[in-house]
């Protein structure tokens, strides 16, 4: 679980940075000067596997022996409001990232969240994409096969 804990920490930091960036470019004249990263209390994996992959579900209190399930980080208070990140783990891989609690004090927050979430999710999945077994997609044809992700996966296992 150590890797996942570290990952949650960096994710929360990244999310805070994204909020920070957008807020500062909105010209709302934030006056606090504390560094963004410093505003992040240490997040921790507080839930065990919950037996539910629904985003934002609460850890069930079991221990993390199996590794699968949904984990939630602590609620982190930032100058823009509280943030919480949950991740879903299957076979020791992160399969989803959700942010059930995020600043929603103004309409721009909603917009920022819709922008930041896909970035986080993509970054997570990119980092693990070498571990996929196969690809489902609409564009795989014989013509384009040799440049496809599926071809790379196949090549690794042809005998």
């Amino acid at each position, binding site marked *: 679980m150590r890797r996942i804990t570290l990952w949650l920490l960096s994710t929360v930091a990244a999310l805070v940075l994204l909020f920070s960036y957008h807020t500062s470019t909105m010209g709302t004249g934030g006056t606090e000067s504390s560094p963004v990263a410093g505003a992040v209390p240490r997040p921790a994996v507080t839930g065990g*596997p919950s*037996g*539910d*992959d*629904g985003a934002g579900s609460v850890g069930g209190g079991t221990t993390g*022996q*199996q*590794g*699968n*399930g949904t984990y939630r980080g602590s609620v982190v208070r930032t100058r823009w409001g509280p943030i919480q990140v949950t991740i*879903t783990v*299957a*076979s020791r*891989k992160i*399969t*989803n990232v959700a942010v059930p609690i995020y600043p929603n004090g103004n309409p721009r927050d909603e917009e920022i969240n819709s922008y930041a979430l*896909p970035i986080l999710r*993509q970054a997570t*999945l*990119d980092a*693990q*994409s070498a*571990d*996929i*077994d*196969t*690809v*489902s*997609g*609409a*564009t*795989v*044809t*014989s013509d*384009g*096969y040799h440049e*496809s*992700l*599926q*071809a790379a*996966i*196949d090549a*690794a*296992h*042809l*005998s």
Partner: protein
Amino acid sequence: MTGPIMSTRMPETAAIPRRAWVEQIMGLPVSIHLRGAALGSSRVERQIAAVFADLRHADRVFSTYREDSDLSRWERGALPLADADPTLAVVMELCEQARLRTEGWFDARRLPDRRGDRLRYDPSGLVKGWAVKRAARHLTGLVETSWCINAGGDVLVYAPAGQPPWRVGIEDPANPARVLRIIARAGGAVATSGATHRGAHIIDPYAGRAATAVRAVTVVGPDLMWADVYATAAVARGPQALTWLADVDGYEALLVDRLGAVHSTPGWPG
């Protein structure tokens, strides 16, 4: 369809031998991956060959490219249905079922032909899933063996108890080198249809023109043929198809709309 696929810790995937075979059939790459202890046996080779032979047979019967396929000959009146390969009548009946199950959004009856100069009967949107699930019967007798068939982006998998699930990446329609999501499956189908598929468009049967409201729809569920049919119907229907699919038992969907936003049914895994 909710809840983690895995309930106990599984052995490392890397510890189980894995082997792949790829052939180009029906204009599509078809890859079969096996995981298990005895992948070098002649039995395995025979079963793999039987899967590919089944798919090549389906191509000979159903190809819309070949003038000599049973389908083409039947369509121009040169082959009575009763004299055609018996699977032709089976597939035609399934296409009618599919039209009814999708409330008319999957319709093989009037689709543009390759040159776009006339409408023809084209069951291709159903045939691939049907043929792959049928061919997969040759793999079900391999004990203690996981298998994964990927036919041009439509996937059918199986993993016995004690082996890890297959990790299926779902292609980003905006960038096929990337994946949008990863889902772990120990059994069943993952089928994706896109607004532009193999150079052709999915037709909105009610409007009679190419559907453009969504980029891609992925459907997971027990049966590859139905998953693929539902994905194709959902592309034709547009974003509101998610409401319809949410009520279809056993199937869940992920939809990428025209703007690239991702939506899913409430029970989508992961």
